[in-house]
Structure formats: C-alpha cells, structure tokens
C-alpha cells in the first residue's frame, strides 16, 4: 500500500484513511456532507496524488494517442485538455483519461490510479509509432482546488490570470514560488476550480500556500467520499463503477468523446454500435420511494423483471434526494421511465431523469 507524499498532513488534519486503488487515501475529514457543501459553496482542496500521469513525447506522440483514445486529440491546441477514453477490443473501456497537449510533440495523459499499470501496458503495446513514454505518476502530486471561491483563493499565488482561463485549458507557470507548476482548469466536481500538478519535493510548500491563501474563504480539506458524491451529482462516470472493461462508451453516454473522424482501437465496432443503436444505456435516476441506491443493486420493471443494474448511488447532499446511475434496457432508458431499484427485499420506485442531476457551474 502506497502512502501519499502528504499523508502526515492529512492525518494531522483529522482524516480518516482508507485503502483505495493501492493507496492509503483520506476518505473524510469533518464528514462527507459538510465537505460536499464546502465545495459547492466556497472552496475545498483534495489530495488526489494517487492519479497517474504519463508523458508521451516525440514525433509519434499524437499518432499513438489517436490510436488508443476515442476522442480526436488532433483538435487540441497547445495548453488545451480533452476528456477521452481508451476502448479495448472487446467493446469495453480500458480507462477514461484526460489528454493534455503541451505542444505538438508533447502530451500528458492523466489516468485512474487503479489502472496505472494496465494503461501503461496497453499504451506501450500499441506504441508502434516510436513515441517516448514516461510514467511520472510517482514524481508528481495533484491537488484539486474546487469551488466557487477557488479562483479568488488561488489568484495571489500565480501570475497566470485565472479568471481568463477557459474550462479544460492549462498553464505551466510559477505557483506559490515554485516554477513549472501545471495549473489546470479542470475538476471532477462540477464546481469551478483547478487541478494543480506539482513535483513531490514542492508539494508541501504548495499545499500549505493554498491552505493559507484559502483560509479567508474557508478552505477545507476534502476526502474521497465527497469527491464521489460531488461527481455523482454531475453524472460524471467513475471507472470501476459506471464504466469498466465490459461497458461500451456508446452505452455509457460517452458518444461525445467517441469521434469517428480517425481510426482507433475497436472504432469499427463502436461505429457500428452507434449506428445500429445499443441494447442498454447508462441513465440517471432518482428514487421516488425512500431508500438509498447503491452499486450492484438490481434494477427491475413494474413486474419485477430484471432490466439493469445500479452502478453508482447516493443520497445527494445538495438535493437531499436519493440519486443514482445505472444501465437499463433501451426500452426503459427514456426520461421519466418508471423503474424500480431492489433495495434489500423491496422494489423501490424510481424514475429516469436527465444528467447532470444538478446544474453544473462549469462548461
């Protein structure tokens, strides 16, 4: 089990630590609902240094990325970011990821911690383009600073004009006295904010500076539990829950990042699937009856026939409603369809609703 570079700091901040994706991770500090509210109303900081980062460089870099990812990375300009996924040959997804273009011959891929080795092997296997690959996951820390006050809290720390940064762009600049920090206008919460990539040796300095500058905005550390409820309110997929090796990006509602403007792994089959239509779809739902849906609970129709499965569920801290996502047969996937979630011995009534569950602060 790996420890975060700032493990001691999280313990001192009162974190409850749990194993996650091979790391000892802070799951809560003061409590999931309070932390969730902090991000929705002011600003919070997450240590998500467990995430993986690969540098892909050289003349073949773009060709390699185009071959393994579903989105069209040729559309990226310098300092632009793209959400994408890596399809496998069996119709599923190896991982979802962010693609950063530093220059036309230098890209950074940000992948899920649980998939670092699998992704590395997969990309390396497809590297017939002579691209150079470097796994820098163990060299960098990543702090997500999220919430409506994130810009104000961070502005004093960098010459980059944060208000001028569009969503899904980044800058490499001086930050908290440290050179070459990656300041990325991204996040996994639907609140506006930034993700800050910093080398391990400067991590504590940067973390402390953010906490200090954020103090007057009420900045608080946020754990994985609230990260999950925040992303779920936005209907963002979580790898391992909502998408995995067996779910197709088309079924998962990720057609928007599946571009057939270029060939990629399994693109022919996915294109056919998109044209013919899929038999099941990932939908959002809210419970009408009282209860809480959870990963792997069955979804049934009014007669009790199994029609799908819950992939994520929670009581939304913002809406105070039980919400979830799950795969259901196409016939039950339209808005307002009545479905039932099996919670223990009962079938609780639910209805299909649009995603995001809550209006996003970013676009």
């Amino acid at each position, binding site marked *: 089990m790996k420890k975060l570079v700032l493990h001691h700091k999280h313990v001192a901040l009162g974190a409850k630590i749990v194993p996650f994706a091979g790391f000892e991770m802070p*799951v*809560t500090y003061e*409590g*999931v*609902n*309070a932390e969730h509210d902090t991000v929705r109303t002011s600003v919070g900081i997450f240590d998500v240094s467990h995430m993986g980062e690969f540098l892909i460089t050289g003349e073949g870099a773009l060709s390699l990325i185009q071959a393994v990812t579903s989105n069209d990375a040729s559309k990226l300009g310098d300092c632009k970011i793209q959400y994408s996924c890596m399809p496998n040959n069996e119709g599923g997804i190896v991982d979802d990821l962010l693609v950063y273009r530093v220059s036309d011959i230098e890209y950074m891929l940000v992948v899920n911690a649980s998939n670092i080795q699998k992704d590395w092997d997969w990309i390396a296997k497809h590297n017939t383009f002579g691209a150079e690959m470097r796994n820098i996951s163990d060299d960098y820390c990543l702090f997500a600073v999220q919430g409506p006050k994130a810009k104000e809290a961070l502005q004093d720390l960098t010459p980059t004009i944060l208000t001028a940064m569009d969503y899904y762009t980044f800058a490499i600049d001086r930050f908290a006295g440290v050179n070459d920090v990656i300041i990325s206008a991204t996040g996994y919460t639907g609140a506006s904010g930034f993700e800050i990539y910093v080398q391990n040796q400067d991590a504590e300095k940067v973390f402390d500076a953010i906490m200090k500058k954020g103090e007057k905005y009420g900045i608080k550390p946020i754990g994985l*539990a609230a990260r*999950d*409820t925040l992303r779920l309110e936005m209907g963002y997929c979580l790898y391992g829950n909502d998408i995995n090796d067996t779910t197709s990006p088309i079924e998962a509602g990720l057609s928007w990042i599946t571009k057939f403007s270029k060939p990629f792994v399994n693109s022919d089959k996915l294109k056919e699937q998109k044209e013919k239509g899929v038999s099941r779809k990932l939908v959002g739902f809210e419970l009408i009856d*009282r*209860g*809480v849906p*959870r990963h792997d609970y069955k979804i049934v129709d009014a007669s009790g026939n199994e029609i799908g499965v819950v992939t994520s569920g*929670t*009581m939304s*801290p913002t809406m105070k409603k039980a919400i979830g996502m799950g795969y259901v047969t196409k016939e039950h996937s339209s808005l307002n369809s009545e479905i039932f979630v099996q919670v*223990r011995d009962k079938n609780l009534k639910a209805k299909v609703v649009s995603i995001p569950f809550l209006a996003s602060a970013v676009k």
Partner: protein
Amino acid sequence: MNFPSELKYTKDHEWIKVEGNVATIGITDFAQKELGDIVYVEIETVGEELAAEVVFGTVEAVKTVSDLFMPVSGKVVTVNDAINNNPELVNSDPYGEGWMIKVEVSNATELAGLLSADDYKKLIGE
C-alpha cells in the same frame, strides 16, 4: 468519544438503556462516527416480537449501509419518529435525541450478557 457508564452495549455497536421492562436502543458514538453522515434509518418492525441479534432495521449513511440488531429479545413497541425526518440526530446525539426504538424486554436474563461501558471501550480499542 463518549460512552455513558449508565448504558449497556453490544458487540454490534448498539447501546441499551433499561427502565423497568422497557429498553431504549440506539447506536453508539463509535458506530455513528464509523458510518459517517446518516441519511436514512429504516425501521419497519414495530409490533414485532424479535429475538436477540435479529435485524430490527437498517441505517443508511452516505457511503455505507448497516443492519441494526436487537441487543435482547423483545417486542418493538415504539420507533423514534424524530429520526425519520432528521436522521442526522443519530450523528449529533446518538444517546439522546438519536435513539431508535423502545422494546418490551421478554427475557430479562439476557441483560446480564451485555457489555459495560468499560468492556465496550476495550472492544473498540479506546
């Protein structure tokens, strides 16, 4: 964490307070902390005679769900309505406003098998 000495406890992290033949039951401070923010307490066993260690309800927290077990055998006579609308009372006041059920104890000899506050603290490593 707080474990009042006048209460009895179980290994399943419930507390029990006996007055006459009626026992009030809830979950411990340790249990509420481990569960995190509680969002729903489902108890549909009012009027039922349940044996010790049988499930009398379920507590749903944001991140997890856990069964609630009868510390002793008896008939569930009352559910705390307040936690139906305000389940967070279980977090904020587990031994007070966050109580869960009242039970008519059917076999008082079972009470001898419950844990004291000190025994319970040892159990959870306090």
